[in-house]
């Protein structure tokens, strides 16, 4: 990837004017119809009037930037073609993300090309111009700017932080309150208590041999999932030479993506975390020969042997182990710190000297602000980066309190819930239109480049705040000044020795710099602060857990149809939130999937009605609901997808996508509690079908019809580490079929490349980043809830998720499934029109323009990876700009499927032929492979003896799905190995 810098003539070339932008767009899309010329629609080609330097129409250029989809701050390469940012890719060199980019980052373009973003500032809900808005705001701030409160989500940008400080310094009583919609405040508070400094440690999973997570979904949504997933996966690959891997235990009430990937998963209600942690703390203290925390031990829900095994394992790996929890219970987090301290994990797997800034939310401050608001003592409320009222409970009293504030300003990009209350809405740029920076982890600073001129008349928060502080600079100037002063002088490498302009260029091109930072001074650990937790849970009450969904972590992404249609990695449900409930509890309550349940709190008036989803492996006393739904304005999706006679709207009239569960958040002890006990459930006699992409959820066949001896399908093969050590090929079905002898004469062999792929199922977490990468790369349409419900989603790449076993013994398997490019492809034989045939390079080609749509190929596909265009899928004008011009937009009535990004293969070959340098392994990166945070996907030439893919395919863990049928797929999978000693799970073998 050649990264290029846009910076040098920022004001000219990056500010590709709207006009130029349309010109560039027009190059491929403009149509002017002239009549009577013999050739209906006459196409005009509009060249640039003045061609910007370095821009070649039709060539994709990548710009280094930072994803600000969440506060994790992953590095990102923005692919820009013909003036349009089109494809987000991970930046391989980035110190945090290391090449991965999650679904949210991949989905940024659709957020950019969104008709519903505000196009100009609003004054009292009416469109206004910036001058009048600025004038009114500065006047009002000057007149009653005594108590100014600025609420933001976590700010990782040093420049923005400085600007905020500068802005707030103008006022006598000004405070910056950091509010995270899903807060980790308790961790910070606990460290304040135990270590004297309020900070979020930087967890280093690269060195963690034993990971015990109490509910922390670190592979899905917790703090910095891409970074964690990459680090976690680095220790999950046993090889023949080194058959070791980390041991990962997850204790949780709901089923999280992380729990799905654990070696051992315990069902534990969040109100029992404290008890189990207390036991662990005592055991480990004993092992360490230290005094355990004070207090009594309550009965543990986990057996003594298992606890002792766990603590021995932890102690055995002391200094290289890690205990984490997402609990917002202060006591629990203190115990976690105690255990980690006793294990000596601080400075090894937990870095508090160079802490993380990825979650700075301070719940106590927010609680205080709410009180201030209710008492009417706030004179100005500014909110940026979060939908303040949407993400807080007690919505009505909060909004009425806010309506009394004299000046309310929102920086929202859309008219969200808070913006609808604001006097002024000063819309921020979209991430791809903004410049900025981020320091997610102390000392690692990256830059955010704008990749096109703002589509609307929006303005960055940076500019607005500094303008109101009396500084008329552009965001770019502010950023550059801040870097000149604060960042670049601290750069470690040789960069700082250069002139500013030079080092700035390097920084922009590279996208990030690493700073020399002084170690954070941290106080001595205070063991006395920690007490054992004895509070016993109440047995017959439900515990509600609110969580954020992978891929839709925040209400700000709720307007992104790609993310709405992204199946939840665990439940596979799209376009809705729901109440996850265990099968036992569902049976008692007499509900089945889709039956609406009313969830009520016993002590408060909060309640919510949502359809039930029966979730295997869920704790029987725990129900869970995703946050980030019920977002204002999502009724826009009512008519997304095809409209026809029997089609049902994605969103019913007067409703939104899902329901906002923030009302169920409990504020307790100055912390937002996402788990609360004292919940009662009532079945409401109503059914709201949920749209899931998977209807059957296990490799175990239905008991009453399973053929004896073949109750389990072996689509995903698994084994345990113990078995693997004994035999690296363990887990292969006993009846192995050797597919090297062929019935037919093989007269097709060629000497060119033979493309193949290998997917390491031990690395794959099921995070679904690849799915959106594929969708973005290949113009996969969004079909809407009803079509998903009818099992007609269009994703070329899906992630099959299988639950094996029940309850505590439940194992979850993920398997990315896409066209396997079979050598003996059943689909090809049956197509009458030669619309799907085999290429010389081993690809199974689908030729859309030749396809007549018999669907025979899809029927005959054993992997069911083919997708049919049932309708013309509508897209609005702006959304069409997110389309990849290198991939045909399919018409109604044709079949489509994974092409192994053949457009990238062709590009790679052409580039090689142009440069004269033959293709090397890794030169061509396909979309799913590129985005994968754990690099589970390897693609390459199977005829190249030294290629990574061939090495992977020759590993003993390699297997092919449905190998016994001799379809000869080009995609291999590496068997799942769970770090277990027992052989209880016989990885889908059958006699």
């Amino acid at each position, binding site marked *: 990837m050649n990264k290029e810098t846009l910076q040098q003539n920022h004001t000219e070339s990056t500010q590709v*004017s709207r*006009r130029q932008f349309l*010109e560039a767009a*027009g*190059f491929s899309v403009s149509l*002017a119809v002239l009549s009577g*010329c*013999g*050739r209906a629609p*006459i*196409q*005009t*080609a*509009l*060249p*640039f*009037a*003045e*061609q910007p330097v370095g821009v*070649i*129409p*039709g*060539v994709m250029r990548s710009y280094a930037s930072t994803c600000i989809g969440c506060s994790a701050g992953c590095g990102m390469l923005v692919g820009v073609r013909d003036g349009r940012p089109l494809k987000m890719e991970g930046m391989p060199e980035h110190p945090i993300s290391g090449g991965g980019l999650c679904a949210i980052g991949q989905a940024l373009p659709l957020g950019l090309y969104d008709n519903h973003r505000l196009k100009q500032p609003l004054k009292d809900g009416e469109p206004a111009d910036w001058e009048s808005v600025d004038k009114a705001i500065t006047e009002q701030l000057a007149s009653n700017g005594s108590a100014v409160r600025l609420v933001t989500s976590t700010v990782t940008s040093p420049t923005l932080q400085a600007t905020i400080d500068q802005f707030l310094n103008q006022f006598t009583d000004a405070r910056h309150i950091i509010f995270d919609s899903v807060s980790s405040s308790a961790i910070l508070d606990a460290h304040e208590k135990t270590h004297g400094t309020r900070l979020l440690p930087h967890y280093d999973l690269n060195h963690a041999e034993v990971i015990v997570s109490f509910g922390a979904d670190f592979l899905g949504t917790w703090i910095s999932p891409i970074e964690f997933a990459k680090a976690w996966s680095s220790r999950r690959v046993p090889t023949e030479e080194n058959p070791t891997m980390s041991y990962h235990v997850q204790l949780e009430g709901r089923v999280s993506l992380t729990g799905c990937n654990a070696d051992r998963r315990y069902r534990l209600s969040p109100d029992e975390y404290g008890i189990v942690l207390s036991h662990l703390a005592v055991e480990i203290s004993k092992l360490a020969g230290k005094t355990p925390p004070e207090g009594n031990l309550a009965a543990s829900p986990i057996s003594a042997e298992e606890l002792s095994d766990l603590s021995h394992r932890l102690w055995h790996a002391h200094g290289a182990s890690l205990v984490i929890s997402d609990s917002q219970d202060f006591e629990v987090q203190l115990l976690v710190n105690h255990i980690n301290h006793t294990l000596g994990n601080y400075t090894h797997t937990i870095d508090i000297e160079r802490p993380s800034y990825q979650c700075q939310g301070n719940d106590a401050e927010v609680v205080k602000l709410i009180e201030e608001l209710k008492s009417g003592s706030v004179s100005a409320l500014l909110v940026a980066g979060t939908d303040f009222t949407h993400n807080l409970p007690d919505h009505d009293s909060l909004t009425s309190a806010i309506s009394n504030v004299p000046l309310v300003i929102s920086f929202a990009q859309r008219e969200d819930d808070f913006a609808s209350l604001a006097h002024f809405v000063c819309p921020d740029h979209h991430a791809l239109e903004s410049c900025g920076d981020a320091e997610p982890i102390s000392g690692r600073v990256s830059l955010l480049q704008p990749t096109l001129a703002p589509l609307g008349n929006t303005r960055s928060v940076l500019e607005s705040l500094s303008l109101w502080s009396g500084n008329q600079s552009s965001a770019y100037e502010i950023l550059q000044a801040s870097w000149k002063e604060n960042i670049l002088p601290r750069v470690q490498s040789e960069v700082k020795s250069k002139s500013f302009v030079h080092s700035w260029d390097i920084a922009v091109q590279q996208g990030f710099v690493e700073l020399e930072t002084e170690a954070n001074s941290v106080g001595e650990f205070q063991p006395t602060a920690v007490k054992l937790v004895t509070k016993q849970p109440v047995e017959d009450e439900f515990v509600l857990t609110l969580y954020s969904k992978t891929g839709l972590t925040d209400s700000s992404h709720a307007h992104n149809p790609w993310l709405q249609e992204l199946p939840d990695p665990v439940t596979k449900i799209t376009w809705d939130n729901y109440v996850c409930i265990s099968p036992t509890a569902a049976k008692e309550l007499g509900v089945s999937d889709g039956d609406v349940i009313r969830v009520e709190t016993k002590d408060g008036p909060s309640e919510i009605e949502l359809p039930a989803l029966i979730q295997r492996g869920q704790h029987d006393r725990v129900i869970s609901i995703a946050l980030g739904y019920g977002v204002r304005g999502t009724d826009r999706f009512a008519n997304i997808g095809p409209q026809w006679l029997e089609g049902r709207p994605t969103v019913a009239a007067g409703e939104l996508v899902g329901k906002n569960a923030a009302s169920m958040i409990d504020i307790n002890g100055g912390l937002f509690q996402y788990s609360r006990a004292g919940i009662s459930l009532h079945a409401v006699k109503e059914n709201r079908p949920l749209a899931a992409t998977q209807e059957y959820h296990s490799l175990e066949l239905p008991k009453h019809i399973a053929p004896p001896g073949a109750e389990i399908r072996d689509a995903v093969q698994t084994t345990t580490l113990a078995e693997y050590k004994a035999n690296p090929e363990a887990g292969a079905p006993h009846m192995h079929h050797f597919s090297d002898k062929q019935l037919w004469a093989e007269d097709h062999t060629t000497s*060119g490349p033979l493309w193949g792929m290998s997917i390491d199922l031990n690395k794959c977490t099921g995070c679904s980043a690849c799915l959106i990468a594929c969708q973005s790369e290949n113009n996969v349409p969004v079909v809407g809830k009803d079509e998903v419900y009818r099992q007609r989603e269009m994703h070329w790449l899906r992630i099959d998720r299988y639950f094996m076993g029940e309850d505590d013994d439940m194992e979850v398997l993920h398997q990315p499934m896409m066209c396997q490019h079979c050598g003996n492809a059943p689909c090809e034989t049956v197509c009458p029109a030669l619309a799907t*045939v085999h*290429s*010389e*390079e081993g*690809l199974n*080609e689908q*030729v*859309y*323009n*030749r396809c007549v749509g018999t669907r025979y190929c899809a029927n005959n596909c054993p992997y069911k990876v083919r997708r049919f265009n049932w309708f013309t899928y509508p897209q609005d004008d702006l959304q069409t700009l997110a389309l990849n011009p*290198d*991939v*045909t*937009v399919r018409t109604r009535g044709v079949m489509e499927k994974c*092409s192994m990004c*053949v*457009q990238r293969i*062709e590009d790679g*070959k*052409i580039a090689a*032929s*142009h440069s004269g340098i033959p293709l090397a392994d890794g030169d061509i990166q396909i979309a799913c492979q590129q985005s994968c945070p754990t690099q589970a996907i390897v693609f390459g030439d199977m005829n190249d003896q030294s290629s990574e893919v061939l090495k992977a395919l020759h590993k003993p863990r390699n297997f092919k799905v449905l190998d016994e049928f001799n379809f000869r797929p080009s995609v291999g999978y590496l068997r799942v190995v769970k770090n277990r000693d027992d052989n209880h799970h016989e990885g889908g073998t059958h006699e």
Partner: protein
Amino acid sequence: MTDKTNILRQRIITVILLVGLMFGAATLLSGMTSWRLPDHEQGYVPQQPINYSHRLHAGELQMDCRFCHSGAEKSRHAGIPSTSLCMKCHKNVTSSFDVLQEELNLADEEKRKPNQVVSVELRKLYDAFSLDEELKPIDGVEPQSIPWVRVHDLPDYVYFDHQAHTAVGVSCQSCHGPVESMQRVRQHSSLSMGWCVNCHRDATEHGMNGQSVHASTDCAVCHY
């Protein structure tokens, strides 16, 4: 008698019908050669917004194709030159040489400064580039794109990459025909799939410019 005349009449009618049928078929067949199937636009010569002559530029002046269509070696699109590129020459060349010379001579004779002579066609260029009579930029008016009419248009599901073809030395003329002799550009080749495929086969079999090449006829080389 009546029978015989009847038979005679029938035979005459039959003969006339047969002749008519054959004549009709012949007309139809000859007409069909000029019929166009959809997407078959060989010989298409659209009127362009500016009467630009490839014969003059590429033929008489022997300018390299890639001077203007620089994308041909770097991108899938050969590209249409930006207006500013035209201005590189036409800042000075404002009309045909003869006319300019004539004005110079006339000015010389009349002992005055030569007037700015701008040809009708170039005026359109200057208008697009928002230059006034004196060829000075007009303030506040942004240069506009010239809406050239596309001559060679492949269907949306076909991807043709200029770079791939120029890299192995396929000459511009082998697809676009003798553009240097065309006043107005005409679609020279049929651009049908068979035309592409047969050239690919030929190249693989006989090589390109003496070098062996592998021009694949896999579907996904063009369709994806």
